[in-house]
């Protein structure tokens, strides 16, 4: 039942607005709304009940193991939320004077420093509001860099075929054309193809390492050399630092620019779709181009850097300063982990992934890349099951839901047929990993005995399998009984 269907004309959450409507007669009628907007008219309790009940229809980290590859669904410590929502932070106007914002600015400054340290970059801007915007900022800086040197012919961004969709989309948005570089079966970039591709058109290469295939790119130094020698820059898609935190630093690998999804590695919640934060870090030569604002420290005081300080900046990415509340959560999390905790994240995220991979193998599942170490994630391909039993990766995914596990990422990376990309994260206990593998095994047995059982899943959720084709063909994007009676 939609909230609109609880609506009755004249109902409202009375204590939540001024008792009387103030006079707005000074505004000419031509500017005024003619009909009241058809928002729901419900009591506060009805809203509370409706949205409490709705929430229970979600899987989430707080309720389920959620091994969604590339998404780093780890525990979101509750303290991060509580402390980021202290009234002193919530009630701060974004343009409050710096003198009255030192507490907040201190957190932001230290966050920049910690990010620089864990990534090995020279400087960070916290402006980008998600990974994709971080990529945008990074690629825009690459463009600005080349332009600033009068190096105008670089029109192409190289992207490995395994890359996340945001990489090519970002390159296009920045006005580049995109050239894909193939990936080898062992997960490494096809170096020969790369060598052929680079040239005077090359603005840069966007790379994820460990790649979206869940393996560490071993030739990274050679790749860096090839790109740099061609005059291009190296972009690190740091959506997932979980497997390298404190182990190896993108700056040391030769990357010029990196974004980091704080809502993954640094455990700010995903919120059912966001908000995130895609802080962007750069090597020395790209510092002048950082997006604004950036926090600096002068003596004991913190202040924003503006256009005056960074005239070559690619500019602003938001009305104010990005997702401050998300940044605070990341800051708190990083301070709780501390330097020793950082390394542990990488170690145990990697341990969990490799353990699950070993278990998958032992239980007879086919691995996409069988002979390598997993990083924070690994891939099972169900192409045999699809071929022999006509049960697809998506069927496995849906059946997992019935068994109380959120499904891994399905059909990504696109290179691997019938794949499940599995990322357990360091915060899950061995029991959860074993339980998941038991469930996978059970599903395969079900698929052998009764494939329709698996193909019909899920059965135990609020709805059965939904018709996505219908959704796209018979578009129903807003409630049209919009006339509240």
């Amino acid at each position, binding site marked *: 039942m939609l909230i609109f269907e609880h609506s009755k004309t004249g109902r409202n959450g009375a204590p939540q*607005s001024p008792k009387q409507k103030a006079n*707005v007669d000074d505004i000419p009628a031509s500017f005024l709304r003619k009909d009241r*907007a058809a928002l729901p008219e419900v009591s506060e309790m009805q809203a509370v009940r409706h949205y409490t009940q709705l929430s229970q229809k979600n899987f989430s980290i707080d309720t389920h193991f959620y091994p969604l590859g590339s998404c780093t669904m780890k525990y979101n410590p509750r303290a991060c939320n509580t402390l980021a929502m202290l009234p002193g932070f919530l009630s701060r106007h974004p343009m409050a004077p710096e003198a009255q914002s030192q507490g907040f600015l201190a957190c932001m400054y230290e966050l920049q420093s910690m990010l620089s340290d864990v990534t090995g970059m020279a400087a960070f801007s916290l402006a980008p509001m998600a990974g994709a915007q971080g990529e945008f900022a990074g690629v825009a800086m690459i463009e600005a860099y080349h332009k600033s040197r009068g190096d105008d012919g670089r029109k192409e961004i190289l992207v490995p075929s395994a890359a996340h969709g945001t990489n090519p989309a970002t390159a296009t948005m920045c006005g580049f054309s995109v050239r894909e570089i193939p990936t080898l079966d062992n997960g490494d970039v096809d170096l020969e193809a790369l060598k052929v591709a680079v040239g005077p058109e090359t603005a840069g290469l966007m790379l994820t390492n460990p790649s979206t295939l869940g393996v560490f790119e071993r030739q990274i130094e050679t790749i860096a050399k090839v790109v740099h020698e061609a005059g291009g820059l190296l972009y690190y898609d740091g959506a997932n630092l979980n497997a390298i935190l404190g182990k190896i630093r993108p700056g040391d690998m030769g990357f010029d620019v990196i974004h980091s999804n704080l809502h993954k590695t640094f455990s700010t919640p995903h919120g059912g779709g*966001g908000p*995130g934060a895609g802080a962007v870090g750069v090597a020395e030569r790209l510092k002048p181009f950082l997006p604004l604002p950036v926090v600096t420290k002068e003596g004991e005081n913190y202040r924003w850097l503006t256009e005056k300080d960074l005239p070559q900046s*690619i500019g602003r990415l938001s009305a*104010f300063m990005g997702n401050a509340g998300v940044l605070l959560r990341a800051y708190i999390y990083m301070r709780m982990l501390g330097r020793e905790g950082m390394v542990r994240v990488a170690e145990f995220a990697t341990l969990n992934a490799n353990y699950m991979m*070993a278990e998958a193998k032992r239980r007879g599942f086919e691995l996409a890349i069988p002979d390598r170490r997993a990083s924070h994630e690994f891939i099972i391909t169900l192409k045999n099951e699809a071929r022999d039993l006509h049960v697809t990766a998506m069927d496995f995914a849906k059946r997992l839901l019935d068994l109380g596990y959120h499904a891994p990422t399905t059909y990504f990376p696109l290179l691997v047929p019938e794949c499940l990309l599995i990322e357990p994260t360091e915060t899950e206990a061995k029991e959860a990993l074993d339980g998941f593998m038991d469930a996978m095994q059970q599903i395969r047995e079900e698929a052998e005995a009764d494939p329709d059982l698996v193909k019909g899943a899920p059965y135990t959720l609020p709805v059965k399998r939904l018709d996505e084709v219908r959704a796209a063909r018979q578009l129903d994007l807003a409630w049209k009984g919009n006339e509240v009676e």
Partner: protein
Amino acid sequence: MPFIPHTEQEIAEMLQAIGADDISALFEEIPSHLLANELTGVPEGMTEMEISRLMHARAAQHPQSVCFLGAGAYEHHIPAAVWEITTRGEYYSAYTPYQAEASQGTLQLVYEFQSMMTALTGMDVSNASMYDGATALAEAVLMAVRGNRKSKSRKILMPTTVHPTYRKTTRTIVQGQHIELCEVDYDPATGVTSLEAFKEKAGDDITAIVIQQPNFFGNLEAVDEITDWAHENNILVIAVANPLSLAILEAPGNWGSAGVDIACGDGQPLGAPMSAGGPYYGYLCCTQTLVRQMPGRIVGRTLDQDDKEGFVLTLQAREQHIRRSKATSNICTNQGLVVTASTIHMSILGASGLEKAAAACHANTMALVKQLSQIEGVDCAFESNYFHEAVLKINKPAVEVLVALAEKNILGGYDLSEAYPELGSAILVCATEMRTDEEISAYANALAEVCA
């Protein structure tokens, strides 16, 4: 170990299953000379008790000032229920609803959100959010360029009465795509953009125009006539509007005879605390015609195998994870949790509650303007109708006045002198429904002192 549940025994069992001697063996593919040294820029870990003490101290460094500052972020009352429900683990710690059957909570909520935004804006469709108002405007411009097949110019008219950082952000984002953003000046007497000014800049092929209502100064633009003129000239119209104002002001979908093509703005006034600048969210609505140009997530209603209603992400072929370099945008993560809060906020207040809140903001600002403008040396900058925010000229440098007020714990407004040097010393003020008569008078007294 913080947040890591492994016992010694389990670690041993797991390593054995892997066939590795120790955890460091798992990193053996990393060239050893690349392995990082101990981090030096990250302090030692803190317990929750310690970080809690630190964060309380940091938060306490911010004096609780009385806020008359708006300029795109407003202090409104938010029912306690809103964030208590929003931060329930099931909303807070879920991912983007890729597995629809296990995400009906979030999906239905977003569908309801889309419905509310279309009701408020009078548009046909809404997406599930952009990062903020500024980026929503940038994406609206990109949509318009893709969507206006009749125009070749990629030229956009952008009044300077549009929020200054919205304009900057739009510039940053669209600059790579050879789009010309052409600024249109306002009338210095009225602080609004005349139709003439648009016409002057128009030339013969314009892709789209932007109108902010109320504009950055709080003034009301002649949206009907501008919209109609644009449409007569095959120009798409992009509205930027504070969504709370839409409880009182005409919906963009009803501007002129046909309504605008795209409406966007920042959802902050609908349930997001000011929180130092974010997270807020951008809303983005458009006509049915433009739906396939929409960036970002869209939720649709459909049926399950038993013909029961349910909700899914739809039209995904527009998006980066499917269309990659041909996607309508690179946006992936959006501002879902704030949308959750906003949906609950709108449900609890309803249209009548939003209307009362908006009217109170306007009445308070009028009362403020009245009192302040009686002060010697303080004057209204413009002769026009405004809503909930207004510009005052001051006989002393705005920056000094604002510092002096800040010392009295009053955030006196937004200093316009940098973005609008032509105004001289001028500030933009706002008094939301949160401000009391006493606070308004206290501001007037303080300003009188400062200006004396």
